[in-house]
Each structure stands twice: as C-alpha cells, then as structure tokens.
C-alpha cells in the first residue's frame, strides 16, 4: 500500500468505520447511561433564581470561588487545551470543509497562522497537564492506564496535524494520512473512555444542578 492509497483508505473506508463505531458507540453509551432513569423527587421544591440544571451547565464552566489557586494547572491549562482543541478542530479551514460535507453547514475559519499558533499553545497546555498528572500526588494516585491512553489519543491528532502542515518528520501525504488515522482512533475510543465526558459532562452538570436546584442551591 503506497501512501496515497493509505491516505485514500483512511479518508474512505477507515473514516467510515471510525464514524460508524463513534455514532453507534455514542448512542449506545447515552442509552446505557441515561436509560437507567431516576426517581422523582417528592420533597417540596424551593425555588431560587439561578438554581437549575441549565444554570449549572453554564456555571460549572468557571471555577467555583476560591478553587482556581488550588489547581492552577488543571484550570488554566485545562481551559487552554479545551478551547484550543475546539478552535483547531472547528475553525481550521480544511476541517470546516470536511465538517461542511457532513453537516451541510459552513462557517468562517481562522487564518492558518492563527490556527498554527493555537495548535502549538494547545500542545504546550496538554504537556503541562500531563506533567501535572505525573507531579501531583492526587492526580498520579487517581491515574489509570485510561488516563495516559486518552491523553495520547487526544495529543496525537494535534501533533500529527501540526507536523503535516509543517512538512516535518514524514512526507506530507503520509503524515496527513497518519493525522486522519489518529483522529479516527480518537473517534473510535471516545465513547468508551473518559473522553466520553465530552457528552456526559453536560448531563452530569444538569443532574447536579437540577437536584440541588430543587433544594434552592445554585451549585
């Protein structure tokens, strides 16, 4: 298999396989989780402005009072790499072109140089959280194979994409194929690892917000 065939495979069959597993996996996992249901709360609710599931979905995007200094790396590098991932994934022109073909909607992208800069910053932030995971006793204590594995899964698309754009290490065609393959691996594993928080974090925040909101506590 030469590199163009490899690229063709990852763009065609490979992507199809990855998308099928991703879509199937996401729906399966969502059903597995939310299908369990919960009991109705029979206690009399206390209404309080800002105490609801929806409010918590938004509010939890910011560190609660006093928490930022306790885990600065988790928070700051966490923000940087999450925002960075979103920018790189959704505002890079070739990615938009790809998504447009799937969701039939288009939006303006950012100049390549900006995306390039964001990619570097994002990778730096991811390395920072990795070092933090190794250096911080709690994080190291909690870490399992899954944590290292998912970090790698997330980092590879950034690294390979950046190397491909800069024509480093491997010929562009091969690197582009490796890049797409790394994204496919990410898609395949996302529903079955902690990366699934990309979906469930919103549900979790909603439950937390709704259940405490019932008590009039804006969590």
């Amino acid at each position: 298999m030469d590199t163009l065939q490899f690229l063709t495979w990852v763009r065609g069959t490979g992507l199809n396989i990855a998308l099928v597993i991703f879509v199937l996996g996401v729906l399966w996992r969502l059903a597995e989780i939310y299908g369990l249901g919960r009991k109705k709360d029979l206690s009399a609710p206390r209404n309080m402005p800002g105490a609801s599931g929806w409010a918590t979905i938004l509010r939890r995007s910011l560190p609660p009072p006093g928490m930022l200094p306790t885990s600065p790396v988790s928070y700051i590098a966490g923000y940087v790499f999450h925002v960075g991932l979103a920018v790189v994934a959704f505002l890079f022109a070739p990615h938009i072109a790809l998504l447009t073909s799937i969701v039939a909607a288009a939006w303006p992208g950012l100049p390549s140089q900006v995306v390039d800069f964001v990619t570097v910053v994002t990778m730096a932030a991811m390395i920072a959280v990795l070092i933090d995971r190794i250096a911080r006793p709690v994080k190291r204590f909690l870490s399992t194979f899954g944590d290292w594995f998912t970090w790698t899964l997330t980092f590879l698309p950034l690294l390979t994409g950046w190397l491909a754009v800069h024509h480093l290490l491997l010929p562009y065609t091969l690197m582009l194929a490796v890049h797409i393959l790394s994204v496919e691996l990410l898609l395949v594993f996302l529903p079955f690892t902690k990366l699934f928080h990309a979906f469930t974090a919103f549900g979790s925040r909603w439950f937390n917000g709704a259940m405490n909101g019932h008590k009039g506590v804006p969590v």
Partner: protein
Amino acid sequence: MSASLDKGVRVLKEMIDAPIASYFSSCVHCGICAEACLFYTETGDPKYTPIHKLEPMRRIYEQEYTLLGRLAKRVGLSKAVTDAELAEWQELVYNSCTLCARCSAVCPVGNDIVYMVRKMREGMSAAGHSPEGIKGAVTRTINIGSPMGVKLPAVKAQMKHAEADYGIPIPLDQEGVEYLVTLSSMEIINFPEYLGAIAKIMRHVGKTWTLSSEAFEATNAGMQIGNSDLARVIVSRVVAGAEKLKVKTVISPECGHAYTALRWEGANLIGRPFTFKVQHIVEVLEEFRAAGLLKLEGMATDRLTFHDPCQLARRGGVIQPQRNLMKMVAKDFVEMPDAGFMNWCCGGGGGASSIEEGEELRLEAFKRKKRQLEAVKPDRLVTACANCRIVLEEGLEHYKMNLPVVGLTETIAEHIPDA
C-alpha cells in the same frame, strides 16, 4: 460471596441510576474534588480524594451496566468487589466523609459526588460495613427513639427546667397549632437552653406551637449510616406525630442532618409528599424577621462570625437568612473566608462525629476551620447546628483556642426584651 456482600452489591445495583452512571462516565480524574475536601487538604493523603471513595461502586456500575464493563468482567480484566475491599473502604466512606458536598460544588464536569457517597452508604450498611458508632446510634434510635438514648421523661424534665428558667409554659401534644417544634438529642442533652429560647421567641412573635411526645426527636441516624429502610422507620415517627397534631409546619432544630432528613429525604423515604411544611428554625426566624415580628433590643458589640452548617447552607439552600439574623444582633459581624455556599465543614458532620476511631482524623481536619477562624479573629462563633457546635468546641479546645461557641437561636432569644 458472603450473603451480606451479595446483599450489599444488590443494593448498590438498585441504587445506581442515570445521574450516577452519568457521573462515573464523566470523571476525568482531574483531582479537583480533593482540593475541596478538608480530609485531603489537611492530611495531604490522596486516598481521601472524594471520587476515590466511590471506587467499589464505580466498578459495580461498570460491571453491571456497561457493555465494556461486562466484557471486562467476563474475561477477568475487572475484578469483582470483595468483602475485604468494602471493609477497607469503610474508613473512606464514613470516617473521612462528612457529606459536606464541597466536592459536589467544585467538580468541573458537574459530578454530585456526595449524592453518590450517600448511595454508596446504602450498599455499605447493607453489607455490614458501617462504623460501630453510627450503628449504635441507629440501634438506639430504632429501639429507644433517640440516637443518644433520650426518653420522654428526660424531655419532660428539660421542659420543666426551661419553664422554670424562662417562666414560660412549654406546650406538649397540642393539636392544631401552627408549629411542631422538634429537637435533636444533642439539644435535649447538651443544650437545653434551645428549648427555652424557642419558648421565648414564640411568645414574642405570638405564634402557637407544641412539642410532641411521639415526635420530639428530629435526627435520623438511619440516614447517616445510609440505610433508607431504617431511615424510613425513623422519619415516619415525625410524619405521624405532625399529622396527628395537624400542624402546619414542622420546625427542624439546630441540627444539620435532621434538616436534610426531614426537608429533603423525608417525603422520598415515605414515598409520598408531606402534608405539612418543613422549615429549619433559621428559616422560621427569618420569616419572623421579614414579617417584622422580631423586635430585638441591644446589639452585641463583640466581634461575631457565623459557621454555616453544610446541611443547612450548601446542601439545604439556607444561606442568606442566617446572615440577615446575625446583622440584627451583631454590630461587628465578620465573615470567614469561603463562608456561605463554599464554607468548610467542622469535620464532624454526616455521622462522622459519632465514630470514635475517627477522632484523630477529625482533629487533623479541624485545622482548616482553625485557619478560617484565625483569618478573622472573632470573639464569639455562632452556628446553627448542635453537632457543629460540639465538634467546633472540641477542636478549639484541642488547639487551645479560647473562643466561645453559641447557637443562633439562643443568641436571637437573648435580644428579645423580657415580657
């Protein structure tokens, strides 16, 4: 698998619902919950990381309710939960967790960790892995009616004493009054002045009220140990008493978990909504204040601060009322750092204070409260939970800090002019 373990696992399977599944699926092992937990921040031991306290429950969730978990269990990659493991976790689930919910308030993905610990305790207690101290409290509550073995004659003696002290009659078993006042054993035993303060306040605002000979005890050790079957038996007594006397409102005493047990868990335990309202005494006082019924005299000139009981504030939604009340009686009211919603636990909530073997850890955790107090240097510390009060006093005594601790209700009562 022993019968008790089997039972515990089955209870956990029953407990796992969509929120718990969502929470376990969302955790990214960021460790931020540890930073919110005083047992971690004061000891630096990572095993006290809140989400780690749920590890056995997480495995049962994965093994029973997820595709990959079932596969992993089948091929032996995921080990079944054992009795020895639950025994090891007992310390984490009870001694080092006061159900304070700070972790639930900070988790970036929104996990309500304390909700899970509460459910985890259901399985732990069913499997026979709960601390002797809380077991004793539950046994006494079921058999005697109070976690501390208080019987009606003792209550009557205290009533008589308070009547003598304040010169106000204390009604018992009066039907059709507005308020049914409940007590915690702590108040009957250690703080009888609470009862006198209530009598004084009720006379001042002109409200009708009563104690009940059947439902004087508001606490619920069944909820602390985390067993709904037993908690249901206990809460049913209050429900029966309140419905028998046809009161409009049941007042939960200055006790944190009693409020959670009555206000939030009660209706769910008995499986139907209450026919009466449940309010914490602080909420009732706030209503009196807002209605202009509290005409207080004099202001304390010493520096006062308020310790928020977790179950009242973060878990109960009562945060502003106590501040409004404090400002009525204190010229110099200062807030500790993180006060209110993010307040730090005294270290003895959720049944932890009745676990003898947990005392050393509790005192270690108290360092957080000590720092908070040192930051504002108050002359007196006010709170609204008898358990907080004693845990605070013990901590202050241990660290040789000379700081009186008083209850909010009696502080308000002190400023009510003599009739």
